[in-house]
Structures are given as structure tokens and as C-alpha cells.
């Protein structure tokens, strides 16, 4: 009656063995480290690089735990997080070409790493780092979309020689007015040709014949999704530029993006880089009109646009953009040898380079301007009331005007960056690409490394004490069966750790709490079974039959209780964010593993020990 088929026994043995195997790497812990890479991926670092890094570190009085080269990359292990943070500040300026990133290197033996066995990923609250939550400003993105369409419609009508009265973009549409119905229809036909996304509607409420161009909700959604995906891509490359080894950049909900940077302790710089919308434009300077007059009247002559230089001087530039941020293939910062001021060195790609070549060829001796475009956020209205959502305004500033001395196309430098920091940040932003839609930060959390360590220590301590308490109680209360339950509990913990090491999730403080809760529920499963066995024994049932009924009859209660808790966990997982999600994950895992260990695990053990003893008089329960 109480004998498991062989396959079931083996199943338990295999699951336990696999659990121990995959939980193993966690015993070794990890070191705060710096991941150091060669300037390009086809160069492999050598021992001489190790010596160079070592000497820089010893100059700063830092002794690394070890330096090793793995697949052409260097891993510098540190004794403490403080050393790690200090070292990266020392290393970065000395090895500008290389990339250095904050990392955590596992201490497990190499064969485990080769097998791809990882450790439990730790959440920010346990490891320390910076967390940002950004909201994508979709309204202003849509507005810009219509502004862009306004410009392209204008251009298209002009090339087709259709005269329009006005073309005006609003927040949700573009309205075009014409002299007569015939022109309007012609314009409408021209623009709607091979345009399957926009909706063209004739209007009757304007003085002139007109039509509006709008986007359907579906089309809006497609574009907005695209903008968010684009923003995530850009944020990823910016994070890469910041040098973080295991960042998280993820969409959250409808229009939010969460960015987590483990190990980073400088939220100021990270925020400045991540949220920046800065980009560059190259335009020719208009020398035919008077910029002061334009500034006074606020009206730029046809084909020009009014700008201001850094010192406040007005300047007129041609409307035509020669090249802009999106045409860049590379950017780096440095000092301009001629002027001795900080500069950005840029490389242009195909169209940008071609345009630049044509323009410089035709305009030698004429001035060209570099426009620095950044976004500024206004958090308060005129009456100083806090706005629900900041208003983003674009700030455009001419940072450099230089005479074209010769023909150039793909590579050149921009001086006039002011400070070295600005040059470095601009180069970084240009490399990482521009954001498709403006972002604003709605949440920021910095967790210092010591706080993270405290959280781990106290969480572990709580678990250990809780466990000891349960162990002692179960042994006293259920004697040998208590011991079996305790063994199951340990296996349960090992399985949870193994699962957390395999699946890509991170353990948070509420996650530890989730584990503690499932421990309570695992104990409950065994209590239910054992109480049932006691009841059966009390009414004089045969021992083997009592064991059988105990497990059998308790099963439906245990299953129902676990299923309902699982439902609550799934809801939490689906609707919760951040730490709450972490709690839900461990709760779900814990319910699954505890059902296995408390029911199948203890049963296998009990069957193995008692199943073949038919004349059992009493149980140690």
C-alpha cells in the first residue's frame, strides 16, 4: 500500500539532485568587480594590459583581489564595493579608449560557469544601485508627428505646384486650406496617394475649402508603440555608454520605461545622460538678411530660421538641414588642437556625409553653424502651480559657427563645446542616438551598497532563525515525522534557490518574505497530513492504512489552499510592479516546490522507511 513505484522514487531523487546541483554556485558568492574591455571587439586584451591596469590601481593605493583575462576581456575583482567605485573612477580617465563597467563576478569554479550555471540575481534593494521610472510624453510625441507632417506636406505640395492658403498643425491633426474646391481635391488626392495610415477628411467649418489629416486610434497606437520601442533601444545604448554590466531597461505598463542600474551610485550623472534629448544639426548661415531686424520683429525672412548664439547674439540660418544627429555613425570627445578648447569629433554616415560633401564643395569660404538642440522641462505654470505633467520645450542654441575652409564629408570636429564635461556628454549622447519621444522621470530610487548588504544580512538572519524555530518545534511535536518534514523544508529551500538561479528573475526583499511565507505553508501541508494520520491512529486504524489515509485525505485541503493562494500570487504578479512582483514570483515558485516536497517528498521518504514493514505497531508521530 505504501510503496512508491520505482519511477516515483527516482523522480524525487533526480529532482533533489538537480536542485542541489543548480543551487550549488550560490555557495561561492560573488565579488564586486570591474569589467574592462578593449576599444573594439576584435582586439583581445593581453598580460601587458593587466600590468598597465595594475600599476594605475597601485598608484591610487587600491589592491584588487585578482585580475584575470577571460575571452579577451579583463575582469578586475575587488575586495569591497568602495574599492570598486573608487577604481572605476581611477581607471576610466586613464583608459579612455577602453570601456569599463561596474559588474559582479561570481566566485564559483570555472566549470560551473562553462555549464552556464548562474547564481540568484539580486534586486536593487539587495545589491544597491539606481532605479529610474520614466514616462514617455506621448502627447508631445504626437504633436511633433503632426508638425513633421506639416513640413513634409508643404514640401510635397510645393514640388507638385499646388498652392495652399494655410497649412497648420494642431495637437491632433493637420489642417490644410485652399483657394477653391478643385485645388483642395487635387491636394487631397496628391497627399493621400500611397498613404495608407492617415485619414483625410474634408472640412466645412473653415472659410476656405479645406481638409484635415488625422490618425486613427489604431495608427496612433502603432506610432506610439514604435516611439516607446525606439526609446527603449536608445536608453539601452545610453546605459551601455554609462558602463553598467547588467542593466535592466523594460517597458512598464502603457507608457512607462523602467531603468535599473545595479551598482551605480551616482544618480545625477545617470539621469542627465538617460533623460537627455540633446542632438545636433548642421546648417548654413544666411548672410543676406539682418538677424537683428529679424530678432526685433520676431519674423525670420523666407527660407531662414532665427537662432541665438550662446552669448545671446541673434543669427539667421538656412532652413535646409545639412545633417543632424541621426546621420552620425560615431562621436568622441577631446581637445581641439588648434583652439585648445574641448571639442567633439564626429563621423557622418551615408546621406549625411554625401550632403556635407555637396554643401561644403559649393560653399567654401562661407560660414556653417552647429545647432545644439536640447529639451527643457517646465514643471510649473505661470502661477507657479505644479503641473500634472511637465511641458517640454525645445531649446535650440547655436554653439559653433565656423568658416568652411575646405571640402569635407564624413569626419570633422566641432569646437566651442565650452566645458570638457559637456563635450564628453554630447559625444556620448550622439553615439547613443536620439530619443523618439521626450521622457520625464516620475520616480528615482538610489540604494546605497551598505543598505543593500544590511537588507541581505537581516533577511538571511530572519530566515535562519525562523527555520531553527520551526525545526525545533516540529521535532518536539511530531518526533520522527517532524524530522521528515524538516528535511522536506530544507529541500524546498534548495529547490527555490535552484529555480531562482535558473530563471532570469531577481530576488528582492519582499521576495525573501515570499519565501518565508511559503515555508509557513509548506509546514502547514505536513501538519495537515500528520494530524490526519494521528486521527486515523486514534480511531484504531492499522498503521499502514493510517499513513495512506493521512496523505490521501489531506491532499484535497492542501491542493485547494495552495491553488487559491496561487491565484492571489498570479494576480499580484500580473498587476504589481517592482518589489510586489518579486514577492509574487517567489510565492508562486515556493507554492510549486513546497507542494512537491511536502507531499511527494515526505511520502517518498515515509514509504521508503515504513512501506516494507507490514507489522508496524506504532509510529513516531
Amino acid at each position: 500500500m505504501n510503496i512508491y513505484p520505482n519511477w516515483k522514487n527516482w523522480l524525487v531523487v533526480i529532482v533533489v539532485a538537480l536542485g542541489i546541483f543548480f543551487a550549488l554556485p550560490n555557495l561561492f558568492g560573488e565579488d564586486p568587480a570591474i569589467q574592462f574591455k578593449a576599444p573594439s571587439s576584435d582586439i583581445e586584451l593581453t598580460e601587458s594590459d593587466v600590468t598597465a591596469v595594475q600599476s594605475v590601481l597601485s598608484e591610487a593605493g587600491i589592491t584588487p583581489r585578482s585580475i584575470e583575462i577571460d575571452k579577451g576581456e579583463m575582469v578586475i575583482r575587488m575586495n569591497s564595493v568602495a574599492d570598486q567605485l573608487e577604481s572605476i573612477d581611477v581607471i576610466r580617465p586613464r583608459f579612455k579608449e577602453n570601456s569599463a563597467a561596474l559588474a559582479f563576478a561570481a566566485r564559483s569554479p570555472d566549470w560551473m560557469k562553462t555549464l552556464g550555471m548562474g547564481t540568484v540575481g539580486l534586486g536593487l534593494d539587495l545589491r544597491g544601485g539606481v532605479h529610474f521610472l520614466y514616462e514617455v510624453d506621448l502627447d508631445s510625441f504626437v504633436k511633433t508627428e503632426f508638425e513633421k507632417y506639416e513640413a513634409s506636406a508643404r514640401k510635397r505640395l510645393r514640388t507638385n505646384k499646388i498652392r495652399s492658403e494655410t497649412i497648420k498643425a494642431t495637437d491632433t491633426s493637420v489642417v490644410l486650406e485652399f483657394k477653391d474646391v478643385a485645388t483642395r481635391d487635387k491636394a487631397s488626392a496628391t497627399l493621400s496617394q500611397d498613404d495608407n495610415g492617415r485619414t483625410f477628411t474634408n472640412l466645412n467649418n473653415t472659410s476656405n475649402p479645406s481638409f484635415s489629416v488625422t490618425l486613427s486610434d489604431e495608427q496612433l497606437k502603432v506610432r506610439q508603440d514604435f516611439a516607446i520601442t525606439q526609446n527603449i533601444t536608445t536608453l539601452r545604448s545610453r546605459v551601455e555608454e554609462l558602463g553598467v554590466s547588467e542593466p535592466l531597461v523594460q517597458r512598464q505598463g502603457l507608457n512607462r520605461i523602467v531603468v535599473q542600474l545595479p551598482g551605480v551610485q551616482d544618480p545625477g550623472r545617470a539621469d542627465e545622460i538617460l533623460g537627455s534629448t540633446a542632438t545636433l544639426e548642421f546648417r548654413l548661415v544666411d548672410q543676406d538678411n539682418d538677424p537683428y531686424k529679424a530678432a526685433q520683429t520676431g519674423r525670420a525672412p523666407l527660407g531662414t530660421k532665427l537662432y541665438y548664439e550662446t552669448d545671446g547674439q541673434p543669427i539667421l540660418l538656412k532652413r535646409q538641414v545639412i545633417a543632424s544627429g541621426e546621420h552620425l555613425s560615431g562621436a568622441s570627445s577631446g581637445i581641439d588642437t588648434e583652439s585648445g578648447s574641448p571639442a567633439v569629433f564626429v563621423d557622418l554616415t551615408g546621406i549625411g556625409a554625401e550632403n556635407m560633401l555637396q554643401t561644403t564643395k559649393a560653399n567654401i569660404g562661407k560660414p556653417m553653424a552647429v545647432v545644439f538642440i536640447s529639451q527643457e522641462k517646465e514643471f510649473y505654470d505661470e502661477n507657479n502651480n505644479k503641473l500634472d505633467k511637465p511641458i517640454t520645450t525645445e531649446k535650440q542654441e547655436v554653439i559653433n559657427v565656423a568658416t568652411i575652409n575646405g571640402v569635407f564629408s564624413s569626419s570633422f570636429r566641432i569646437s566651442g563645446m565650452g566645458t570638457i564635461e559637456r563635450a564628453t556628454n554630447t559625444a556620448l549622447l550622439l553615439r547613443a542616438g536620439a530619443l523618439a519621444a521626450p521622457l520625464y522621470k516620475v520616480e528615482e530610487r538610489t540604494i546605497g551598497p551598505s543598505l543593500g548588504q544590511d537588507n541581505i544580512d537581516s533577511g538571511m538572519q530572519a530566515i535562519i532563525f525562523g527555520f531553527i524555530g520551526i525545526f525545533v518545534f516540529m521535532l518536539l511535536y511530531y518526533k520522527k515525522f517532524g524530522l521528515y518534514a524538516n528535511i522536506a523544508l530544507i529541500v524546498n529551500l534548495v529547490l527555490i534557490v535552484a529555480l531562482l538561479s535558473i530563471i532570469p528573475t531577481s530576488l528582492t526583499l519582499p521576495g525573501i518574505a515570499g519565501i518565508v511565507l511559503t515555508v509557513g505553508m509548506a509546514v502547514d501541508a505536513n501538519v495537515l497530513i500528520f494530524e490526519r494520520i494521528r486521527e486515523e491512529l486514534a480511531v484504531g486504524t492499522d498503521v499502514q492504512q493510517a499513513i495512506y489515509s493521512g496523505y490521501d485525505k489531506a491532499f484535497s485541503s492542501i491542493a485547494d489552499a495552495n491553488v487559491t493562494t496561487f491565484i492571489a500570487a498570479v494576480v499580484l504578479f500580473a498587476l504589481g510592479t517592482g518589489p510586489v512582483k518579486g514577492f509574487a514570483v517567489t510565492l508562486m515558485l515556493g507554492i510549486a516546490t513546497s507542494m512537491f516536497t511536502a507531499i511527494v517528498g515526505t511520502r517518498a521518504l515515509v514509504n521508503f522507511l515504513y512501506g516494507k514493514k507490514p507489522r508496524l505497531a506504532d509510529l513516531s508521530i
Partner: protein
Amino acid sequence: MRIFSKTPNFKFMDKRKIAAVVSLFLIAFSIFSFATRGFNLGIDFTGGVLVEVGYTNNVELQPIRQALNTGGYEDAVVQHYGTTKDVLIRLLPQEGRNDAEVRDNIISVLSAQNSEAQLRGLSFVGPSVGKELKENGGIAAMTALSLIFLYIWFRFKWHFSLGASGALIHDVILTLGVFSWFQIAFDMNVLAALMAVIGYSLNDTIVVFDRIRENLLGIRNTEPEEVMNLSINEMLARTFVTSFTTLLVVTSLFVLGGEAIKSFALALIIGIVVGTYSSIYIASATALGLGITQEDLIPVVDEEMEEMP
């Protein structure tokens, strides 16, 4: 070792009217507290700035408060956090200042006051995030509740389903009541704890229900009230053991788990105590009050049998 040498024979259901009065009073009191005292909501919900600072030696709060006041943070709430070496500072959303300014400024104010000050953590939360969290928390609780209601209906009968849901709502309101009356810090972790309370209380309720169902079907010619008393008594040892072991872990979490988890653990402690009581008095008594009988259960089993091929 045993708590009871033989199955006890407490007449739980006799006292169900008294229990109902007590529970209704506590619920009314909790709702009164929600209305008059509200909650001590953390910045997760209200938005604002939270700064955690560590010092190498014990520090007094008054000088820090003073320094922050003169530094332009009149609304700063300053308190010790765990030990007297750690300080928690809470600010309302800072009008007219951007985050970067506040960050730099507050660090310089604090280190000017005491050069030992070491920033351990800093959070900014926008007001819109908190508003959403409140709404999502409510939605999560309602969704969980309805799904659980359906599951129990499917597994048992609607009397039980209503009984269990009533017990859950009872537990959540009373737990919230304690948080409101004693103005205990309510943050995002407490929200997770409330979900865990729902899970735990349910666990307890279902275990008792399961026994009631079994006994209602197995013991004929007995009043449902008697069957309930018997079932609860039979499960009493288990209820005590499980509540005790779970309380053991959660208390260890409360005492040793660190400041960040204290509110969470406290919510669980309250939830476990209230949940144990409610699975006896609210859940079972409601099912009884709704007139559950043996006949209600028998056809369900028959139907299931017939449906099976």
C-alpha cells in the same frame, strides 16, 4: 506531544452571534478610523522624497531637523530608522525645485550639519505614480477576491464562497484598521503583505471548509451546526500548530528582518491572528447562516460523477 489529548468539544457556533457583534463593531471602528485618521502613507503612494542617512555614531534628531529647516525644508519629517545611527527623512513633493537640485542640496545640508553623514538611500516618487499604485492595489485586491470567489464556488458551494469572501474582506479591513488607528507606515510592501494575508486567511478557511464538507457528507442525521462544531474542533490542533509556526517565521522577520520589512511583517502578524479567528467565526458562521445543509452538497458530487465519462 499534543495540544489536546483528545478532540476538544468547544461549542464554537453557539457564540457566533457574539462573534458577529464583535466583528461588526471592529469593522465599523476600522472604517471610522479610515475616515478620521486615514493612513500614514509612504512616499510610494503620496509622492515625495525619502532620504536614508547613516552616521558612524549615535545622532540626535533635533539638530538635523534644525539644519533642514534653515536649509529650506520646513516640511521635513525626521526620524530614527532602526538604530539611533540611522535617520530617515521624508519630504513632500518639492515645489519649484527639480530633483537634481534637491538631491545635491540635501546632501550638502546634511554633511554641513554633520560631516559623518553618509547617504544610504534616496528616492523620488512622482505624485502620479502613487495615485496609480493606489488604484492598481485596489484593482489587484478586487481581482484576486473575485477569482478566489469563483474557485471556491466551483470547488464547494456558493454558501462557502460567500463565507470565505466575507472572511477575506473582514481580515483585510481589520488589518487596514490597525494600520490606520496606530498610524503605522503604509508602503508598497504592505500592499504585498495584504495579498499574503488574503492567501493565508484563505488557506485556513479552506482547510476548515474541507473538513466541514467531508463531515456533512459522512455524518448523517446531525444538525449542520453540530457538524461545524465538530469539524472546527477536529481541525483545532492543526490550526494552532500552523498559526504558531507561521507566526514564528513572521515574528522572526519582524524582529530581525530589518526596518524595510517591519511594516510588511506586522501586516502579516495581524493578518494571521485575524485570519485564524475569521476562518472559524466569519467563514463557517456565514455558511451556516446562509443555510448550508447536507442536501446542498450531495447533488454537486452526483453531478460531477455523471459528467465524468
